[in-house]
């Protein structure tokens, strides 16, 4: 019969008790990423109701009232009394409207103290009369031929609508849709929206490479002639460049084609390709396209710094155009108004390279070189470099280029506000 705690009992009698001496006060906070009281930022919320769907404790409810001018005033309340503090809603909220603070003092004598709510006005989509006033010229309004195309208007119940002509059935929208409300079948080219599942969050429109989905608030699009543009069916030449002197024209089955002369094998197109259908080998300069994987989304063409990939609807390009200074063609029909304002300061305007000051000579292998006198080490070039070959240190005022990583795409050249980079 042993008494295990005699020594501890005696020694503890004279030592300080291990107690936090906690006295109730409100200022104390939980551990660093402790999921305590919820804070709701109504302005960010777009009422996509994703949080309500994923909340396991059904703690989130909302009330919509119509305001006099037709918008709906949404009040969303988080009932902490029914919340399991799993923060799934925070993860699902695409817009960061929900945040969990570190305050764990959630003591309430009345039910209301546990309700966290916020109200915001959700603009109803601008309703145009059928004879809608001419659409404000979108910055990159496609020079759509005006002949008898059907006008696609975005729906007013907040759900997306497809522009069949533009859609290439690349199924990206279906993959991106958080609610799984879209079914796109590439084989028989169907695009089906599940009305009640769709939350109208607009993720599909955003993700659509071809901008073939209109959300409320976008401008109606007039259909191009239903028939595919009379682009000459590009011969199925994928390997080496066409015989010299022949024109390379885009293929009509919607798949990209490479302009070997322009291509610098920078592998960006391969990296960007959502379907992983491109394989580019820099060493032995090969560009292979995997026919059935390719969805014809055109991301590679768009991402190609040297515009060396033609998509249906682009102008044919002479095969052997010298690698002259790239004349960026405003090829894309409608410049995408990327939702997130890129901090890129200047619109992609026509840009004539300033001729280099005498002392700094552009290098001959297509790599950029820095003009220390002009450079203000703003690090924009480093940031824009698609492959991260540039290291610019503002404080130490150093500008280092990593030769073998750099692909000579010219992004840094283009974005440098001071034109301190020569290509």
């Amino acid at each position, binding site marked *: 019969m042993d008494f295990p705690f005699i020594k501890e009992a005696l020694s503890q009698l004279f030592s300080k008790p291990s107690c*936090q001496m906690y006295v109730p006060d409100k200022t104390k906070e939980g551990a660093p990423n402790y999921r305590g009281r919820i804070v709701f930022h109504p302005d960010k919320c777009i009422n996509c109701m994703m949080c309500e769907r994923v909340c396991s404790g059904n703690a989130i409810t909302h009330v919509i009232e119509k305001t006099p001018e037709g918008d709906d005033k949404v009040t969303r309340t988080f009932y902490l009394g029914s919340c399991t503090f799993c923060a799934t809603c925070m993860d699902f909220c695409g817009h960061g409207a929900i945040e969990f603070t570190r305050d764990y*003092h959630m003591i309430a004598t009345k039910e209301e103290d546990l309700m966290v709510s916020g109200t915001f006005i959700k603009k109803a989509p601008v309703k145009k009369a059928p004879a809608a006033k001419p659409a404000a010229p979108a910055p990159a309004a496609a020079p759509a031929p005006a002949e008898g195309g059907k006008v696609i208007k975005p729906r007013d119940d907040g759900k997306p609508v497809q522009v069949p002509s533009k859609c290439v059935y690349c199924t990206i929208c279906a993959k991106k849709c958080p609610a799984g409300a879209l079914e796109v079948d590439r084989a028989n080219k169907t695009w089906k929206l599940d009305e009640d599942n769709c939350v109208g969050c607009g993720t599909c429109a955003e993700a659509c490479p071809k901008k073939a989905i209109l959300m409320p608030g976008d401008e109606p699009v007039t259909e191009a002639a239903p028939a595919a543009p009379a682009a000459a069916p590009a011969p199925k030449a994928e390997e080496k460049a066409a015989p010299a002197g022949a024109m390379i024209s885009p293929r009509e089955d919607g798949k990209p084609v490479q302009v070997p002369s322009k291509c610098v094998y920078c592998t960006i197109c391969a990296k960007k390709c959502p379907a992983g259908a491109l394989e580019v080998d820099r060493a032995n300069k090969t560009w292979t396209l995997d026919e059935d994987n390719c969805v014809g989304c055109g991301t590679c063409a768009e991402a190609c710094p040297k515009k060396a990939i033609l998509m249906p609807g682009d102008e044919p390009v002479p095969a052997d155009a010298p690698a002259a200074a790239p004349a960026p063609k405003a090829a894309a029909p409608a410049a995408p108004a990327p939702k997130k304002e890129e901090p890129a300061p200047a619109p992609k305007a026509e840009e004539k390279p300033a001729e280099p000051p005498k002392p700094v000579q552009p290098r001959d292998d297509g790599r950029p070189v820095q003009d220390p006198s002009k450079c203000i080490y703003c690090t924009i070039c480093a940031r824009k470099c698609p492959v991260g070959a540039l290291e610019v240190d503002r404080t130490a005022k150093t500008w280092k280029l990593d030769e073998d990583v750099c692909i000579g795409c010219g992004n840094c050249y283009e974005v440098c506000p001071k034109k301190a980079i020569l290509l």
Partner: protein
Amino acid sequence: MFKKLIEESTGKSPWLFHINAGSCNGCDIELVSVLTPRYDAERLGFKLAGSPRHADIVVVTGPITQQSLPRVLRSIEQVPDPKCIVTMGSCPQSGNVFRGSYSVAGPLSKYVHVDVDVAGCTPKPEAVIDGLYLATQILQEKRKGMKK
């Protein structure tokens, strides 16, 4: 003179009676950890009482299942006044994730006036001590109001 003394000591020696109405035991171990050396609620006079007759504060955890409803209500009924009812965690306040299931008899406030809710799915021990401290103040108010 005694009346003031009694009122003051009502707040100073609150005895807890813990009812587990179908809880996942998260809150139960949290409540008991309040009495461990680290948080030591006994400093403030808290003590776990064995029977409802000895209790001042009834701490209810769990989403009041159908089976436990009559038992919970009877135990609460047997506690002598002045008494406080504290619900710990989200389950007794709203049924939490179990709300709407056939076997959950819904929030405790449907049946009994709940004095203090300590929210949190397993609230931190400090939060529990806050809640219980608030409950002792309410207890003192009730004692003042109550004629013997």
